[in-house]
């Protein structure tokens, strides 16, 4: 077992663009998500209500873009694999969405993720990984820009080590 916080020099990963990932907005899976979070708004449940509100089909709730990427690309997030970080060491730091076009049931979305920045905090006990994710749909529309910050808790004996 390595005692290093990361399996590669984190700075060498800044700017890395991962292979694009696809995800399909599947209606029954979306319904399960809506029930889980307690979302009862008719626009999310009734195709007619959605069309009357101007959508092509039932739209997805704002945070579901984050879930779709995981649902159709199982396993730990690619960035953890790249850097050799165990999933038990991560926390979610920040999450931001800027929406440009709605994503709806039936859409096939493409997620393109780039590592923007990797920075040590609190004397190296924490490392913040900032990723930019661009989401496009099959209608040549830029759906959203997503920013996700993961916090890595570094093992005590590697604290401060940047390799």
């Amino acid at each position, binding site marked *: 077992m390595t005692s290093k916080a990361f399996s590669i020099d984190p700075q060498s990963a800044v700017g890395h663009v991962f292979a694009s990932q696809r995800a399909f907005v599947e209606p029954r899976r979306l319904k399960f998500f809506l029930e889980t979070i307690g979302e009862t*708004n008719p626009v999310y449940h009734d195709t007619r209500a959605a069309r009357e509100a101007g959508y092509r089909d039932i739209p997805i709730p704002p945070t579901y873009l984050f*879930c779709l990427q995981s649902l159709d690309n199982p396993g730990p997030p690619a960035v953890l694999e790249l850097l050799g970080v165990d999933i*038990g060491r991560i926390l979610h730091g920040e999450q*931001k969405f800027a929406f440009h076009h*709605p994503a709806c049931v039936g859409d096939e979305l493409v997620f393109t993720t780039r590592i923007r920045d990797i920075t040590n905090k609190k004397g190296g006990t924490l490392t913040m990984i900032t990723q930019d994710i661009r989401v496009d749909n099959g209608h040549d529309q830029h759906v959203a820009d997503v920013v996700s910050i993961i916090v890595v808790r570094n093992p005590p004996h590697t604290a401060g080590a940047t390799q």
Partner: protein
Amino acid sequence: MSHCPAGPTSLTVGEIPVNRHFDPITRHELALYCGASGDHNPIHVDIDFARSSGFPDVFAHGMFIMARLGVALNEVFPPSSVREFGVRFTAITQVGAGITCQGRVTAIEIIDGEQRARLEMTARDQDGDIKLKGEAVVAFDPQGEQE
């Protein structure tokens, strides 16, 4: 965006149009969210794994709380009106936390020809501790809608 946001037609800085309380979070809900969201990190559902990772118990997915903040937001501002939504996860949310989600208007501005409100979004537990803090930007004047 190609359709008109409904929802409030007037807002003033300082008011809190988004305000909703959710029942205490259960372990069952965390298991359901694990499956529904595709976030299978065992730290949220497997107490043995959580303990081996240095935590006393499992804890809620930050995105589960953000999803509820989104439910509270969409109760007042329809999905098509939400331009931006972002949060910082400022503290871990424990099992049993009763979360109150609020959005307070901090600014009204005209951007890209439409009237938008900035909302300071917070999720607090029953002790008032802030778990999530961030911002939503929503369009609220159908007259300003473009396209």
